[in-house]
């Protein structure tokens, strides 16, 4: 009986001890011990990839490493700093400042390669570690820098796309993060009777661009040559399918290194093709001519008597070479790029229709191209237009447009009169979740008949223009040069121009339309002597690439 009582007392004491301990742990010191075992981690989604129209990669993901340090664990700071700097070369002073001894954990550098990581591991440093991260890898380097944009960090340190399709489609590309809650033992093994919850991350959607990598390479390398040859400080070349307004290539130089974007200024990130406005000059003339034909004010063979300069108020308008041919056809007005002839066209069309057609061609409005940072250009309100404005706009001065706007408007002249929405991405996502983007017709600006007439006039403009270009024989080209003075502080710079050429081929059924714009070329200020030869070089390469037979 005594021994049973002793056993009972023993169990009672043990019971009270356990209850007391539980009371201490749960009520008096309610630290959540499961925190030591329960690990909650965010599963980062893989950012969507970017491919060209053939499915060849332009931007994919690769693993990089974040090097971190635990300053409280490091005993020999000087040695640590010297060794880390010998691999990363970020400066001993920078490392010294970063290694705050009061902190438990600090990030030293992001974006380390596998080789750099291995070198650091070989140093056998105390108090260091690595975290896996992903970063963008561009197999073609900066081939399409302005089109793709880059991936940087937002204020919270998360990845975010800036500029180009990275910026425009950031929400599609970034995906949704997942969460994993798992209880682990001290060896890191999952405790199966504990919490094990996992919500998978949803990877970002991949983008398939309308860009052809090879065409982009042709355009970029030719543009670079052109800038060097003609001494221009900036230039853009855009190639598109005029029937769908799929952009096949777009390059503006100078651009930036997508791998090391942080070494460049913000001004290089913006894509001049969609973000920079300029006065288009004479490449605007066919648009007004088509409007006049559409409104039945003139016909291609109507006659205008080009006698001399035209006076509008206090302003006198001359032809570019101050030469006048007397009676000339409408086609000849385009061939010789007659400013006074275009003033006549404007007068026949009437101020109301001139302004109306500028709107119909989409100037002063966004084209809604899927690139970040598009500007609508600048079109003043009708109430602030003077008679001289209606006259000069017919030959492309006094209006500010973006290259993509002028390309779209010009494409409507050769595709049967349809104003299309230009686009870069043809497919979002893959397999059964893919979304295919179809060409969008915004409006019908001119009739198919007018389109055919203006196309023939543009072919004549290339054939009988003031300059004979080295264009491949056997192919018919249509196009128009443009030379516009650059406005500075209320007047035009007498020495600098925007030289441009817009053309298409083959003329009867255009496979591509191309715009070349050179800013302030030094060898000649005329588009006919700079942008046009560059366009024909690009066009020659494209005819070979597309295997288009001579007609």
């Amino acid at each position, binding site marked *: 009986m005594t021994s049973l009582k002793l056993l009972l007392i023993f169990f009672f004491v043990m019971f009270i001890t356990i209850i007391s301990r539980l009371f201490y742990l749960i009520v008096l010191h309610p630290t959540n011990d499961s925190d030591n075992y329960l690990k909650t981690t965010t599963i980062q989604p893989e950012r969507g990839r970017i491919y060209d129209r053939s499915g*060849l*990669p332009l931007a*994919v*993901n*690769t*693993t990089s490493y974040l090097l971190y340090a635990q300053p409280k664990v490091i005993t020999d700071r000087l040695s640590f700093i010297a060794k880390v700097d010998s691999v990363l070369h970020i400066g001993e002073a920078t490392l010294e400042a970063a290694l705050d001894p009061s902190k438990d954990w600090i990030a030293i550098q992001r974006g380390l390669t*596998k080789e750099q990581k291995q070198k650091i591991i070989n140093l056998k440093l105390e108090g260091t570690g690595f975290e896996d991260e992903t970063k963008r*890898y561009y*197999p*073609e*380097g900066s*081939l399409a820098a302005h089109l793709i944009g880059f991936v940087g960090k937002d204020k919270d340190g998360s990845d975010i796309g800036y500029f180009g399709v990275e910026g425009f489609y950031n929400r599609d590309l970034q995906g949704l993060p997942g969460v994993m809650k798992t209880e682990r*033992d001290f*060896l*890191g*093994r*999952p*405790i*199966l*009777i504990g919490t094990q919850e996992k919500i998978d991350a949803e990877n970002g959607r991949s983008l398939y661009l309308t860009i052809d*990598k*090879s065409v982009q*390479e042709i355009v970029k390398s030719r543009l670079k040559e052109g800038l060097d040859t003609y001494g221009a400080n900036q230039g853009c070349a855009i190639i598109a399918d005029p029937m769908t307004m799929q952009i096949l290539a777009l390059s503006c130089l100078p651009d930036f290194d997508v791998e090391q974007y942080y070494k460049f200024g913000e001004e290089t990130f913006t894509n001049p093709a969609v973000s920079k406005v300029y006065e288009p000059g004479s490449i605007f003339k066919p648009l007004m001519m088509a409007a006049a034909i559409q409104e039945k004010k003139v016909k291609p063979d109507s006659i205008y008597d080009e006698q001399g300069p035209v006076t509008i108020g206090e302003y006198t308008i001359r032809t570019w070479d101050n030469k006048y041919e007397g009676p000339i056809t409408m086609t000849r007005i385009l061939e010789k790029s007659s400013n006074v002839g275009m003033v006549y066209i404007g007068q026949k069309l009437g101020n109301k229709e001139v302004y109306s057609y500028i709107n119909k061609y989409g100037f002063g409005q966004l084209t809604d191209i899927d690139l970040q940072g598009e500007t609508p250009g600048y079109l003043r309100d009708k109430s602030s237009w003077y008679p001289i404005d209606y006259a000069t706009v017919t030959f492309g001065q006094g209006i500010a447009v973006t290259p993509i706007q002028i390309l779209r408007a010009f494409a409507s002249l050769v595709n049967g009169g349809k104003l299309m929405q230009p686009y870069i991405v043809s497919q979002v996502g893959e397999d059964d979740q893919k979304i295919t983007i179809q060409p969008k017709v915004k409006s019908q600006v001119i009739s198919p008949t007018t389109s055919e007439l203006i196309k023939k006039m543009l072919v004549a403009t290339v054939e009988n223009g003031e300059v004979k270009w*080295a*264009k*491949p*024989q*056997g192919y018919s080209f249509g196009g128009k040069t443009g030379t516009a003075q650059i406005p500075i502080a209320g007047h035009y710079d007498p020495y600098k121009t925007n030289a441009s050429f817009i053309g298409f081929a083959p003329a009867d059924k255009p496979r591509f339309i191309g715009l070349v714009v050179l800013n302030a070329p030094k060898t000649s200020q005329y588009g006919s002597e700079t942008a046009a030869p560059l366009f024909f070089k690009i066009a*020659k390469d494209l005819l*070979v690439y597309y295997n288009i037979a*001579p007609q």
Partner: protein
Amino acid sequence: MKTKFNAIAATVFLTLLFVNMYTFISSIRLSDDINTFEQQTAIYKLKNQDLEEKIYKVDSLQHARETATSMNFTENTTPLYMNGPNYALKP
């Protein structure tokens, strides 16, 4: 009766003990497996990414250009266009 109950209780107790031990050891083995698979998945993912990167690099125009330059193939092929018919007319 009492002895029989004690024997049954002891048997049940021992059975439960062994089942518990077996479950515990099995769960540790399973945890080990899960841990190993997680590590292997991470390694294969990295290897896969490395290989993918190498393929993309070798397949790129940039690599082709660099290789061509290193092999002195720096001249572009100039296609013959039909604007030079004199070539065809030569005997």
